[in-house]
């Protein structure tokens, strides 16, 4: 008789979601249809653009001998210029992001990571280069970069309660995506945005919030603590604070929106109980929009 009943089934269950984050991201990315975005002029690229007669200055090795053999003139094969964009992701991984009000719901950090990775999958397929601010390296293209990102996103290593944008590896005139709850001090955020705008970087702010953070469904005598335990606030009747909390949250959203508008960035709010597809579509659209 089987000494471990159900072993077969358990093993299969275990094996199925092996690179979970990447798979989730791939799965999410499948839902977006890619469109080509060539530059519509000749340049360095892979796709054929046009043949033109040889001009002075063209190197002999550039001549397309197959085409030239069919006529008397010599032709050079030109390719479409396909400039790859580099997109840098900053995914907040401070303690506050690990909050989830329900054990069946993604934490904010996971949702942000999935969104970032799914957007990266799409961008890589589109030939762009992507990078993660936390990795500290330049954006790169290729599937390998995805795996590296997935690995890095898997670690939660920051000790701070709230994160501040990281501009490492951000190339001038590149693109940037900031994924965070933006609940921390707004100063570093506005400073980072301003600096990025100075470098000619355009991008997207996506505020990821838990439904509880938007509803504040608490009551009774409560001591609120930040996820890292660094901040605390005690109240006798939490219910009384609800209106004023929501007011402050709305203020914070307005401030971020204003900041984005001032720097030419785009801003949106995503709740973890909402569909991640809509967030991805918006994110991808926002990036595409800038091309």
């Amino acid at each position, binding site marked *: *008789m*089987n000494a471990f009943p159900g072993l077969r089934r358990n093993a299969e269950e275990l094996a199925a979601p092996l690179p979970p984050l990447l798979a989730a991201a791939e799965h999410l990315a499948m839902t977006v249809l890619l469109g080509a975005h060539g530059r519509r002029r000749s340049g360095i690229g892979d796709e054929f653009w046009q043949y033109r007669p040889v001009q002075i200055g063209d190197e002999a090795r550039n001549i397309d001998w197959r085409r030239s053999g069919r006529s008397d003139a010599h032709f050079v094969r030109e390719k479409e210029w396909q400039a790859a964009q580099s997109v840098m992701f900053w995914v907040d991984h401070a303690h506050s992001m690990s909050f989830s009000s329900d054990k069946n719901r993604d934490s904010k950090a996971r949702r942000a990571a999935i969104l970032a990775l799914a957007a990266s999958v799409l961008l890589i397929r589109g030939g762009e280069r992507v990078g993660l601010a936390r990795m500290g390296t330049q954006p790169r293209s290729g599937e390998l970069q995805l795996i590296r990102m997935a690995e890095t996103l898997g670690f939660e290593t920051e000790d701070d309660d*709230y994160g501040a944008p990281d501009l490492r590896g951000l190339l001038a005139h590149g693109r940037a995506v900031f994924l965070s709850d933006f609940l921390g001090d707004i100063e570093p955020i506005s400073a980072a945005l301003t600096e990025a705008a100075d470098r000619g970087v355009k991008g997207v702010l996506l505020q990821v919030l838990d439904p509880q953070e938007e509803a504040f*469904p608490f009551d009774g005598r409560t001591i609120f603590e*930040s996820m890292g335990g660094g*901040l605390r606030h005690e109240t*006798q009747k939490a219910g009384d604070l609800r209106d004023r909390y929501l007011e402050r949250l709305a203020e914070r959203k307005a401030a971020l929106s204003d900041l984005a508008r001032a720097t030419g960035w785009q801003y949106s709010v995503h709740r973890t109980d909402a569909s991640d597809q809509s967030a991805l579509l918006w994110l991808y659209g926002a990036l595409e929009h800038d091309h």
Partner: protein
Amino acid sequence: MFAIGPIAFTAPALLLGLLALPVLWFLLRAVPPAPIRRRFPGVVLLLGLEDEENEADKTPWWLLLLRMLAIAALIIAFAGPVLNADDEVASSDPLLVVMDGTWADARDWSRRVDRVDGLLAEAGRAGRTASVVVLTDLPPDGVTFQAAAQTRQRLAALEPEPFGPTQDDVNAWAGTLDGSFETAWVSDGVAWPWRDDLLSALEARGAVRVFETGQPIIGLRPAVFEDGVIRVSAFRLAAGLPYDMTVNAHGLDPAGIPRTLSTARMVFAPSETTSEVEIALPPELRNRVTRFEIAGLRSAAAVSLTDDALRRREVALISATDDREGLALLTPTHYLEQALTESADLIDGTLSDVLLANPDVIVLADVASVESEADALLEWVQNGGLLVRFAGPRLAASDISRTEQDPLLPVRLRAGGRSVGGAMSWGEPKALRPFGADSPFFGLTVPEEVTVTAQVMAQPDPTLSERTIASLSDGTPLVTRKREGAGQIVLFHVTANAEWASLPLSVLYVQMLDRLAISSRSALPSVEDLTGTVWLPDEVLDAFGTVEDAGLQTGVPGETLAEAAVGPELRPGLYAGEERRIAINVVGPETAFLAAQWPANVPVEGMQGVEEQSLKSWFLNAAIIALLIDVVASLWLGGRLSGFARRAAVGLLAATFVAAPEVQAQTQERFAVAATNEVLLAHVITGDAQVDRVADAGLRGLSEVLFRRTSIEPAEPVAVDLEMDELSFFPFLYWPVTEDQPLPSSEAYAKLNRYLRSGGMILFDTRDANVAGLGTTSVLGRKLQQLARPLDIPPLEPVPSDHVLTRTFYLLQDFPGRHAGADVWVEAAPADAELADGMPFRNLNDNVTPVVIGGNDWASAWATDAQGNRMFPVGRGFAGERQRELSYRFGVNLIMHVLTGNYKSDQVHVPALLDRLGQ
């Protein structure tokens, strides 16, 4: 013990703790509910916000009250409240428990023993010595007091007797009492004559308490046959509420099986102490009745054995002719009919018809020759029949038994007979000689007016004198008798009517018939009749009214029997003498019993007494429930009841009070998941723990073999409750048949039928090797029929040799289990199944047979214990091991058949399929 009303406390000091409650009140009020700690990233937005009203939350008064009550209940609980505390001052004297131990005790003997056990336990706690005396089994040497615990061990061995103790015995024992002791008398409630004497003897030694159950004592008097009906009467000691009971007449049915032959309802009207019911039974049934008993009453008094008094003998009267119409007084059988019609059932008819009815007695009145039925008649006599023949003109005129003795006559006869004292003859009519001591008629007085004028004469033979049981004054035989096998042949040398003798006109005629056991006797024989005889008990009654075979008990002298007083010497039962049987019952026709009356100074208690009842658990439960409510209320007040937590808390509270049905649903779901994860073999729970254990072990053994040899990898077998569990998860059910398993409910049968229709299979195993063939007379076979009747089972046949079961995995031709050789039955092949050309097998059923029925006890052959060892031996030596192996192979084939259906059947087509594929 400190007591308030009926409630006493074992540790009253703890009640002082109640004084601390007000302090607790202040403490609880001072402390606000504890805050909740909550991780919340949005806290940064809260910093700096002030509460609008900054007052500490106070615990509401009702919550405080609840907590107070909980604490108070705890304090009271630990103070040990006891309801109906037993405050009696214990004495240190030894305790003597007296039990009557009669038939009247038997009805609730176990309750009495329990009560005595309680008394002894109490005495044991008080450190007293004790002794138990049963008056029907008195100790020879007075009373020996022992430690109570030791005395308790003897209790289980005490038994009541089906009689009451005799006065002499009790008085003698009472004389041996000495010392002082307290007495607890567990009385049967009957006023025995020795009761007052014993009571005063016991009271001289110390206090006496009496215990009585107050159960009505009911006795059944012997049944009386009168006017064609059986009258059964019963009495009870004390009038009271109307009481309804059923009287059953027990006896053997024609197949020799004990059955209840008839049932009658008997009612004691209120304020009546006697009750009577008339039961009319056809003679054939009536003669089979062996005892009457009150259903459901376990007492010897509720059973009344019947003897020959109730039995009416069947007598067939056959005369040669009845052609002389109108002369009733002259017909040969007229006087016989008159003599017997009161006390026997008469049968008319021709001899050949009568023999079929197997009567007790056949009377041939002046029938000379019975040539055509002679052999049958002789055989009937040899089997115990009594053939009585009367002489007459025909017998005298015939030449039967002249030179050679006729086997149907006791003596040889002289031709012609003789007549004495007639007009044409000398001499006086002859009178009768007094009966000799060895004659069955011994003791009957011979009236002087009885004379004989004609007779047939016996030829002198060496055996004549011993065969003569009555003779005339001149010594010629009047009645001769010969024993033939188990029966006897009696010849009256005169006619049955008054033609040859005046005997039929006298009372002696009736008495003689009576003595020959031709007529049925009613009353108990007189003391004179019984003197010097010895009666052997056939069956005896115990105190519970159970009839037991008497075995080798010694005989009882007739004098004792005549007194008919049951006692140690004469146990109630059925006693057999030479020619009849006499029933001795606890309650005779005249016996009267009265209810015991106790003097006013003797306390009489019931069996139950008022038991001490500890209230501790009640108070503890109340405290726990109050605290649970407090938990939910506190959570609710503190705002911690949200969403799931609220539902959970309410559910928890609800579950405390009512059993939640979801639990069952969850269990069923878990059962379903467990059952469908793997292939499981299942067996039906029969209710017999041993059978279920063997079935489980058997299926485990089979699973092991399947796992090792085949690609079927079953998990641990499952026991299935037909009422509760879903069956459709199991491909196969093993159903051992036990005698006493209850029939499943109709819902369970509906489930089983659905199961069978949807491809399930049940293996019925009667486990008795079909000793009687399928379901003919074996008990388990009948039970199987009973179990399977509501099932939707197709026609069955023994496994044909080409059934797919013989080749699903192994090639088998028989299917042994622990037994071998019995037929195994499966669904019958369709009638049109034919052997096609070139096919080794018929094209049989296209599905799995829904049932397999056999009796080979497969589970025992398969059974292995947890270590994998065989649990039961099969056969002997290598042959036995081979049989076990074959039984495993049968199991493998069976499970393969269940799981693959007729796959192997279709295998015969493989060559054809391959052939077709090749093209």
